C-alpha cells in the first residue's frame, strides 16, 4: 500500500473527537459534516439491538449483517477525502499527480476482505438456522431453549440418580 493519497483523520483532533458538552449548534455542525459517522453509529446500534434482543434466529443474523455493514461504512469514512477521486479512475491526469487527490484505497481493500468474511459467516449462520429449523421445528430462541431445558432436566435427573446409584453400589461392597 503506497502512501495514502490524503491525510488520515488527525489523531485527537476535533474531527475525530465525539462532541463533548458543546453548544447545540456545534453538535449540529458535527452532524452536518460527519453525518456518515452518525449513520454508522445508528446502524450499529440497530444491529446490536437486533442481535441481542430479537428472539428469531434469522433476525439475529440480519442484525449481525447490519452491524457488519455499519463497520464497513465506518472504514470507508476513514478513507474518504473530500473532492478526491477513486485511486483507479483516471481523469486527464492519474490519481496522485499534483492536484488530483485520491481516496485512501486501503480501507476499501480491507472491507473487500471483511465483506467476504461477512458473507461466509452469514452463510454458515443461515445453514445452521436451516438445520436448527429441521431439528427443533422452530427458529424462535425461546422455544428452542425451553425445549432443550426440558430435555436437559430429564437427563440431569437421570444422571443424578445414576451417580447416586454408582456411589451406593460402590458402598455396598
Amino acid at each position, binding site marked *: 500500500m503506497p502512501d495514502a493519497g490524503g491525510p488520515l483523520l488527525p489523531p485527537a483532533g476535533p474531527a475525530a473527537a465525539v462532541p463533548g458538552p458543546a453548544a447545540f449548534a456545534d453538535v449540529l455542525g458535527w452532524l452536518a459534516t460527519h453525518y456518515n459517522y452518525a449513520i454508522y453509529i445508528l446502524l450499529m446500534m440497530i444491529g446490536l439491538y437486533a442481535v441481542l434482543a430479537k428472539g428469531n434466529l434469522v433476525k439475529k443474523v440480519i442484525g449481525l449483517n447490519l*452491524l457488519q455493514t455499519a463497520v464497513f461504512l465506518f472504514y470507508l469514512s476513514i478513507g474518504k477525502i473530500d473532492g478526491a477521486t477513486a485511486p483507479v479512475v483516471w481523469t486527464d491526469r492519474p490519481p496522485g499527480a499534483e492536484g488530483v487527490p485520491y481516496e485512501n484505497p486501503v480501507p476499501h481493500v480491507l472491507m473487500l*476482505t471483511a465483506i467476504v*468474511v461477512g458473507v461466509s459467516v452469514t452463510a*454458515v449462520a443461515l445453514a445452521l438456522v436451516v438445520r436448527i429449523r429441521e*431439528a427443533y421445528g422452530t427458529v424462535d430462541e425461546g422455544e428452542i431453549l425451553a425445549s432443550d431445558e426440558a430435555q436437559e432436566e430429564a437427563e440431569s435427573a437421570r444422571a443424578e440418580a445414576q451417580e447416586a446409584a454408582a456411589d451406593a453400589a*460402590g458402598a455396598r461392597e
Partner: protein
Amino acid sequence: MDAQLPALVIVVPLLAALLVPLAGRRAAWGLVALALLLAFAGCVRLLVRAHALPEGEAIRYALGGWAAPVGIEYVVDRLNALVLTMLSGVAFLVALWMRRSTAREIRPPAVTGYYSVFLLMAAGLMGITITGDVFNLYVFLEIASITAYVLIAMGRRRQALYAGYSYLILGSLGATFILLGIGHLYMATGTLAMADIAAVFAREPQLYDSSVIRTAFAFFTVGLALKMALFPLHGWQPGAYAEAPSATSVFLAATATKVSAYALYRVAFTVFGVRFLETGLPVVRDALLVMACSAIVVGPLLAIRQHDLKRLLAYSSVGQIGYVVLGLALHNADGLTGSFLHFWNHAAAKGALFCVAGALAYRAGTTQVAALKGLGRRAPLTAMLLTVAACSMVGVPLTAGFLTKWYLARGALEAGQWAVIPVLLASSLFTAVYAWRLLQLAWFADEDGPVAEDVPWSMRAPSLVLGAACLVLGVAPLALPVAQAAAEALL
C-alpha cells in the same frame, strides 16, 4: 527451506485441508496427521531459532516479498513460538487421537469434510499466532472461528446446532468489535503492521492520550474477551465445548480460547506497548484483573454443579482462562511467566481431560460424570490420565499446574495485589472438589464386574502423551525458560 518455515507452517496444513476432500476417504486421515506433524516439526524448529536470536529480535517473513508496512509480515518471536509449538503439538496429537473417535461420532460421508475443516481451523489458529499484521489477525481469527462454528455444529445431538449458532452470534459480535478496534487504530496511526504501529507510538507518544486510541484498545479488549470466553462473557463456551464432537472439544478446549488470549497479549504489549498499559488506560487493566479473578473463582464453582463431564470441563476452562489473562493484568515478569506457562500446562491438562471424556463417549456412548464409575478397573491407564490431569488442574506440586500458580502468586505479591492469593487458593480448593468427585467415581466406586477393554491404543497413546506432559512440564524445566524469555521479551 529453513527461511521459508514461517510461511510453510501455515501453508502446509492449509494445503492439506484442500487436498483432503480430493483425496480418498482412506488417505484423508494420513494426510491430516502428516501435515500436522510437519507443522509441529516446523514450529519446534522456529522455537529453537527464535531462542537463538539475540534479545528483542524476531524471525520476520514478508509474504509475497512485500516488506512490512506495505505487505503482510509473519513474525515469530519468543512469545508466539511458544504458542505455535503448543498449537501444532496439540493439533498433531488430536489428529492422531481422532481417527477412531470421529469414525464413531461423525456421519461417514462427512468425515473427510470434518478433517478438512479441522485442518483449516488449525491453520487459522496458527495464522492468528504468527501474523504481524492486525488486519491479517482479524482474517485468521475469523477463519478459525467460522471453522470452529462448523466443527461444533457437527456434534451428534441437536443441541450442538444451537451451541454452534450461539457461538457464531457472540463470536461474530466479538470479531466486529475487533474490526472496529483495528479501524480506530488505523485511523490514528495510518498503518496496519504491528511493528509499524508500535513505531508510530514510539515516535508520537502523545497518541496515548488520544481518545481514538483508547477506544481502539477498549474495542480490542472487549472483542477478544468475548472470543476467549473471559467471565462474564463466557456464555457461549460451555455449550460449545459440551456439544461438539469429542475431537473438536479436545482441540478447542486445549487451544482456541488461549489463542485469543495470546492475541490480547500481542495487541496490548506489541501493538499498544507496555507504556500504554501503565499510563494510557489503567482502568482496562483493573477491569481485566477483576474479570480474571472472578473467572478463576467462578469457573470451578460452576463446574462443581455439572453432571456432564464435558460441560464440567468447559466451566473449568472458564476459570482457567482467568489464569492466562491474570499475567496481563499483573503486568510483571513473574505474572507473565505464570500465564505463559499456563499456555502449555493447561493445554496438556485440559486436552488430556477432554481425551478422557472422548474415551467415555467412545466406550460408554455418554459423557455423563456417572459413566466414570469403575473406570479405574475397566481402563486403568485412562483413569491414571484422569488422575494426573486433575492433579495438574488443582495445582498439586510436581505437576505442571503448580508452577503456573507459583509464578502467578509471586507475580501477585510483587505487584502488591495480595487479594489475588486467596483467589488462587480458593480456586484450587474448588477445583479439588470437582476433581475429587471425578476421581472418587473413577477409582473408589468400582464393582467386581468383568474387566472391559480400554479405548484402542490409537486413542490412548496420544492422550497419554498429554498426560505425561502434565508431569514432565511440572518437574523438568522445559517450559519455564521459554515462558520466562517470552515474558522478558514483552516487558
